[in-house]
């Protein structure tokens, strides 16, 4: 009790009443009830024991004092003042098994029970609002009411009339009027105009992040013609440094990094292409609607944007952002891990593009905004319907064209070749039955008599003896080859009993029964390429051709004497060996882990996404495949737990496909799709993916079967011959796929082209010439294919996935399905139902719809933030109820409307408008002291704020000023210079140069666990989620860096050498002026020159030199100038 009395006194004395401790300490007070009792009741009891309970349990309500006293079937729940005898306490302590509450759950913490005991002991006070507010439930959420709280936010931006202002001096832009009007209303005079040098330094940093050089300053000052400022702005926007600066802003939103963090910091191979994509996009003035669409659906745009003058696909690079986050290798709970990753994607997406924190709604409806848990899961679906790939972005457009040409080429030649081949077979097919029967005779004969029987058979039917021999050889192996059309003949007619009269029919019937029928009961078909028209075709690259092949499709080969290599006897996704020469360009990085995405790039086939049942997948394939089962989209496959996700399977080289089994049974109940890629250079055909407990035996039915009227081998042979002749005709006419017996005909035609010598056919000269022409054209085409490519991180579109609402965000508690959609509060939101795609393209369309209330507002606000130091909505990533209110709502709408309807989403145009305003040209000195009083935090923009440069701009300035800046644009990251303070598991093997090769900071390597200390010190964000507004801190580590970081010392020396080189004849004062102009963009005042000269004298003394050209002395002076605040601040 001592404490109880003592504590409130202390608290009141020292926290001035911020903590309502007095009421807490008084025990049974309202505060105690509201913080300790009611929330517990609401969370643990009300579901079953309140007015809002679905089904009231035990007749007991706990949502009011009256109700507690009345109790339920077992009597009153509480006896005020007597916790010992209160049933509620007995239930909570789990003393009686039957009464234990909450049921089937662990006991509540002892501290909570103690709170209840105290509450009852002190009278069980229940404050006046008798009925407790129930916990919000999905059904309770009222969208319209929520919307009303911020009605303006959910309306599309409207055109705004420019406000009238009284005090017009000089030209005034529309934007200025909005600012000025608010200042006039507040009775504040805006700051006067900044001088030209201040404006120039400011605009340089805003647009390019680099200080103006001395020559640029001189040129600007010398340009006295009207429009000088506009000319500067145009030049800066045209400079490649503009893109570098603004790409870096965008990278903060995309939590850009080049490694996956977590334990071992595996690299994200080739992530930097996304960074270069951003720089190019800004420099090329890509309109924001296009830019956004590329981020969401760059892989799905009907017409991708190409890098000017090339065939390089730019659009697809925009999708890389999705995979720049953290990835965990070998997580034990793989589904939980997926939920975290998806959450991160939804978070980045919604903050960046919508200015909303939708991720808050993962566990329950948003507390304040009109966002339901359902909306969160509706967005998750878009992320779940696509997977990770390394895309051959340099080559893909070229190859898409080449693939089309290849298809056209084949269409032009193959029918003719097939016709010629069929014609050459035609002549020899009339004797098929004779050969077949003769070969049978030979095979059935005693070994020692075979030669004689053969000779006799040949003579009797005037058959060619070597051809007969080939028939014999073939037939001899056919019994073991179920895919052969003669399989049943071999099984039946070569059976010793077949010579017994009448037995033939029985044998044939028995054979028919022996054929395996359908799939095992309970089997589920995940993908069926044998029925190509019913299968969504999801491939990366051209290696599997434009579509699955159908039975009867004709495949040309590389042998002019046998130009048709194969006729498809079943439907299948087939690797086209034409594409066998795909290569990774030199310097391209290999993907981490066993997934090895780089190696699979451009040659992948994927199935729809399914939820695993028994978890045993069976693949019917021919040839070798590297298979990735993307269970829970886990891609950082490495380590012991999930190695089975990536496996190589061999379906064999025989003509018939084979079932192989991928045992994913530990993942039963998890979502997955399967990706097939080739392994090695051989053929690969994928027919079917089936899930079932047992291995299926089903094979595509393609074998020839005689009719029911066939009573003998001779009947059989005759029927076979007739069918073969018919199939050959279909082959020649190109009607295989349409024939009434297409599967049989395809099988026969294939058999024929695979065994050309059986018919004795020889191609004629014309056929040879045609085949030669075809092969020459094909190899000419091959020479124009872009075999080598860099690869980049990108989305690989899959099939539609609609996520379940997860109750309280727990993956093992799936609720109702939430179909893919923008949050319902958005006017253009429409459920997206497409099953054959993730639906990201449709989503992008809804986002850039001018009716969308938030997309344009969010981006103009971001630009405003970067130009003026603070957004019109200061919380740039959150326009919702918990964000800041706009300081100038009409201006925000004006800018948003203008961007969409007048500037065609051009951000360059927007930036230009803003930096040419009079507002931007204000001094950072307030016009009057009153202004600071009336607008102390400058929310009305009565002056331009003084801003500290960002980490990158500080380092880039250093290099620019010293003259070391290497202005190379684009390219692989420069490794971070490793110090003894950049440590940890997975540390890069190579340290980069101290000066980062002189490159701008945007090109520095971004290994998640090994970020540059200097950048971190100056508040470069940790890349984990969207950061639209960086922290700006003042910490001693920053000063220590300026004072002692070797880079600053090194560059001070470089700068001093440059000074002495460029100002050989100048005196010390002139040099000081030179230095000031380089570093600060202005000339020094007299007392500053004096201070520097004095310092120079001191330094010369300390260095014990009288040399006016001493680089040591000048280097120290330069270093001091870099340490002054002005170097890292912009006015």
């Amino acid at each position, binding site marked *: 009790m001592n404490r109880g009395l003592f504590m409130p006194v202390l608290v009141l004395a020292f926290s001035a009443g911020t903590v309502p401790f007095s009421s807490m300490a008084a025990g049974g007070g309202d505060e105690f009830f509201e913080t300790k009792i009611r929330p517990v009741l609401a969370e643990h009891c009300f579901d079953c024991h309140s007015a809002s309970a679905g089904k009231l349990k035990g007749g007991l309500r706990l949502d009011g004092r009256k109700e507690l006293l009345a109790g339920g079937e077992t009597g009153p729940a509480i006896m005020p003042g007597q916790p010992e005898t209160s049933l509620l306490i007995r239930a909570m302590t789990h003393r009686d098994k039957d009464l234990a509450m909450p049921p089937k759950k662990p006991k509540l913490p002892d501290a909570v029970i103690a709170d209840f005991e105290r509450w009852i002991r002190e009278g069980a006070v229940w404050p006046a609002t008798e009925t407790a507010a129930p916990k919000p439930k999905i059904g309770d959420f009222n969208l319209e009411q929520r919307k009303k709280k911020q009605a303006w936010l959910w309306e599309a931006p409207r055109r705004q009339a420019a406000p009238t202002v009284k005090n017009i001096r000089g030209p005034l832009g529309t934007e200025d009027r909005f600012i000025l009007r608010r200042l006039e209303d507040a009775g504040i005079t805006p700051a006067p105009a900044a001088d030209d040098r201040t404006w120039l330094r400011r605009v340089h940093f805003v647009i390019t992040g680099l200080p103006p050089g001395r020559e640029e300053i001189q040129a600007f000052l010398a340009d006295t013609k009207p429009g000088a400022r506009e000319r500067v702005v145009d030049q800066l926007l045209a400079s490649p440094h503009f893109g570098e600066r603004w790409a870096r802003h965008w990278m903060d939103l995309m939590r850009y990094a080049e490694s996956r963090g977590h334990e071992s910091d595996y690299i994200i191979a080739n992530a930097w292409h996304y960074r270069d994509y951003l720089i190019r996009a800004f420099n090329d003035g890509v309109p924001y609607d296009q830019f956004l669409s590329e981020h969401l659906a760059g892989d799905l745009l009907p017409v991708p944007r190409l890098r000017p003058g090339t065939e390089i696909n730019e659009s697809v690079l925009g999708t890389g952002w999705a995979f720049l986050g953290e990835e965990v290798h070998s997580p034990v709970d793989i589904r939980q891990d997926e939920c975290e990753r998806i959450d991160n994607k939804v978070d980045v997406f919604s903050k960046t593009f919508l200015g909303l924190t939708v991720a808050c709604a993962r566990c329950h409806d948003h507390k304040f905004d009109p966002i339901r848990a359902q909306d969160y899961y509706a967005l998750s679906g878009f992320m779940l319907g696509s997977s990770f790939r390394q895309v051959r972005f340099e080559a893909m457009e070229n190859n898409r064209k080449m693939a089309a040409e290849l298809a056209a080429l084949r269409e032009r030649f193959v029918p003719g070749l097939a016709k010629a081949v069929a014609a050459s077979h035609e002549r020899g097919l009339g004797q098929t039955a004779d050969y077949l029967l003769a070969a049978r005779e030979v095979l059935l004969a005693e070994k020692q008599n075979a030669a004689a029987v053969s000779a006799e058979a040949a003579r009797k039917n005037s058959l060619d003896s070597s051809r007969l021999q080939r028939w014999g050889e073939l037939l001899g192996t056919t019994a073991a080859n179920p895919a052969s059309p003669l399989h049943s003949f071999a099984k039946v007619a070569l059976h010793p009993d077949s010579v017994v009269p009448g037995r033939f029919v029985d044998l044939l019937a028995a054979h028919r029964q022996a054929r395996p029928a359908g799939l095992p009961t309970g089997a589920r078909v995940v993908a069926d390429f044998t029925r190509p028209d019913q299968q969504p075709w999801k491939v990366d690259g051209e290696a599997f051709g434009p579509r699955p092949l159908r039975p009867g499709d004709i495949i040309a080969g590389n042998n002019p004497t046998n130009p048709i290599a194969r006729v498809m006897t079943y439907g299948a996704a087939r690797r086209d060996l034409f594409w066998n020469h795909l290569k990774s360009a030199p310097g391209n990085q290999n993907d981490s882990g066993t997934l090895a995405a780089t190696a699979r790039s451009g040659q992948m086939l994927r199935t729809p996404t399914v939820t695993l049942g028994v978890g045993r997948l069976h693949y019917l394939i021919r040839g070798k495949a590297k298979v990735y089962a993307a269970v829970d989209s886990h891609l950082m496959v490495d380590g012991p737990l999930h190695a089975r996700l990536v496996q190589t399977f061999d379906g064999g080289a025989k003509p018939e496909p084979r079932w192989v089994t991928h045992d994913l049974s530990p993942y039963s109940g998890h979502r997955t799709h399967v990706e097939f890629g080739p392994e090695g250079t051989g053929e690969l055909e994928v027919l079917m993916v089936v899930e079932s407990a047992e291995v299926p035996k089903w094979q595509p039915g393609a074998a020839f079967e005689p009719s029911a009227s066939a009573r003998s081998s001779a009947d059989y042979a005759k029927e076979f011959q007739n069918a073969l002749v018919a199939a050959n005709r279909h082959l020649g006419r190109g009607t295989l796929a349409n024939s009434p017996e297409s599967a049989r005909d395809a099988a026969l035609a294939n058999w024929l082209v695979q065994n050309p010598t059986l018919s004795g056919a020889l191609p004629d000269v014309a056929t040879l010439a045609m085949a030669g022409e075809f092969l020459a054209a094909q190899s000419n085409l091959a020479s124009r294919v872009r075999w080598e490519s860099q690869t980049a991180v990108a989305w690989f579109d899959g099939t539609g996935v609609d996520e379940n609402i997860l109750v309280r965000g727990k993956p093992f508690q799936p609720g109702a399905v939430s179909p893919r959609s923008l949050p319902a509060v958005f006017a253009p939101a429409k459920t997206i139902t497409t099953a054959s795609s993730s639906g990201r393209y449709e989503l992008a369309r809804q986002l850039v719809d001018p009716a969308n209330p938030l997309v344009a507002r969010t981006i103009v606000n971001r630009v405003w933030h970067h130009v003026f130091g603070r957004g019109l909505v200061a*919380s740039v990533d959150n326009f919702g109820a918990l964000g800041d209110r706009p300081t100038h709502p009409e201006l925000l709408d004006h800018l948003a409307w203008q961007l969409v309807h007048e500037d065609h989403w051009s951000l360059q145009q927007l930036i230009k408008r803003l930096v040419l305003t009079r507002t931007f040209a204000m001094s950072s000195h307030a016009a009057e002291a009153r202004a600071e009083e009336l607008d102390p935090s400058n929310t009305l923009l009565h002056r331009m704020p003084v801003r500290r440069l960002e980490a990158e701009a500080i380092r880039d300035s250093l290099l620019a000023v010293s003259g070391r800046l290497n202005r190379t644009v684009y390219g692989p990251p420069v490794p971070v210079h490793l110090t003894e303070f950049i440590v940890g598991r997975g540390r890069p093997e190579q340290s980069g140069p101290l000066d980062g090769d002189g490159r701008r900071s945007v090109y520095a390597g971004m290994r998640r666990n090994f970020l540059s200390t200097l950048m*971190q010190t100056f508040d470069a964000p940790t890349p984990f989620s969207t950061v639209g507004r960086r*922290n700006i801190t003042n910490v001693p580590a920053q000063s220590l860096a300026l004072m002692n970081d070797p880079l600053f010392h090194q560059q001070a020396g470089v700068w001093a050498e440059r000074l002495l080189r460029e100002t050989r004849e100048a005196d010390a004062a002139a040099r000081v002026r030179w230095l000031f102009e380089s570093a600060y963009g202005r000339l020094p005042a007299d*007392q500053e020159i004096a*201070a520097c000269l004095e310092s120079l004298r001191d*330094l010369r003394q*300390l260095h014990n030199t009288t040399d006016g050209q001493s680089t040591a002395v000048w280097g*120290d002076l330069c270093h001091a100038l870099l340490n002054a605040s002005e170097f890292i601040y912009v006015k």
Partner: protein
Amino acid sequence: MKPSRPNDLFLDPRISRREMLRRASNGFGALALAAMFSPAVPDALAAIVAPPRRSLEPKLPHFPAKARSVIFLFMEGAVSQVDSFDYKPLLAKYHGQDPRQAIGKLEKTQFENIGRVLKSPWNFRQRGQCGMWISDLFPRLAERADDLCVLRSMTSNFPEHTSANYFLHSGSGLQGRPSAGAWVTYGLGSVNADLPGYVVLNGGQIPSGGLDNFGSGFLPATYQGSLLHARGMPLANVVPNEKMATVQEAKRRLVGRLNQQGLENSGREDALESAIANFELAARMQVAIPGLMDLAGESEATKKLYGFDAPYEHTRTYARECLLARRMVERGVRFIELTIPMVDGYNRWDAHGGLVKNHGDNARAVDQPIAGLLADLKQRGLLDDTLVVWAGEFGRTPFAQGGDGRDHNEFGFSVWLAGGGVRGGMTYGETDDWGYKATTNKLEMHDLHATILHLLGLDHEKLTYRFSGRDIRLTDVHGQVVKEILA
């Protein structure tokens, strides 16, 4: 010489709230500048008493605190509870049997290589007045049993090192969230004007998950852990590059004059003022940190107490860390974390195989230094308001992984607290008969965090930071203060 310990505002009745506010809001202003540009000795600056700094200035706790500093002894890799603080005789009885028979259904483990029930190779004895069971793994530490408050029912949400490390440090299994040390420094600031508020002493092992374990996440960078190396250059850029100190002083004089000029040019500007303040703080740190690291003033007896003369190299390393931790406590550093030395050939406490050698060597490295630290803090009267936290990211299985190792176990393990307002000589919570899962008074990481904050005078539900429109806490939406262990 014992440096006088800086005062926290809330403990010093002589400073009124009004005075505190006046100090804080008056800006750096004239006083500091005047001192900076006085022609007197450059160290005149050091004479300024604790100039308030923008973000690290001391702040009031929510209520009176028990502890002023935290020393976090992070036992990375996960110490086995059943070989240290959680005595389970049943393991000996069932040693060598199939755990699926003896224990029943087992949870998934990281490696799924489940061996036999494995008894502890170390003997357990009752220690101290309290009679707490501690094994011979920590012979010296066991002598301090009466100072320890062992929580035997701790649990974690993650069975992998990295996520669990993040969880232990930041209350979230994901990368990029503020570490507890950052939260504490954010909540309380620092009473030492010359040192960072949150210091990580690097003994050799950087934990899985890297420096993000000590990050400030979305909190301002001011609060992130400063990694100090126990040997060599302790902190990035803290040692001047100039060959002569006088050259740096000359430069600093010039910078001071230019900054003053800049301030006059731009009028009063908070950002510029605090940059100037930091510039001078940095200058003082160049003195303070080497002073901190210089152990010349410590007596031989003190060094011996920590184990500076130990034959084992890693004991000596950790002894140095522990002594430095005490010196930082004396200087008012708010949150001090020690990482363990890189014990030869071993991966932290992560004994997937060779339990005896792994735990034996790791214990050898830390046992005496920790016991020495507790003794030293106590004899100097510092233990009462210094909270010592000893914890790994999870525990280990009571059954073997393979033959002679133990796999990860997040379902029940032991951590201990000492000093700083917790009751010594007690245990709290229990695991089942196997030491496998917490059964009684089960604790979550959030409860540990809530309790640490509570001892520091912070209400974990009120210590929030608004990020992206949400008020975020170290304990997310969880956490209960473990009241039963409060002294």
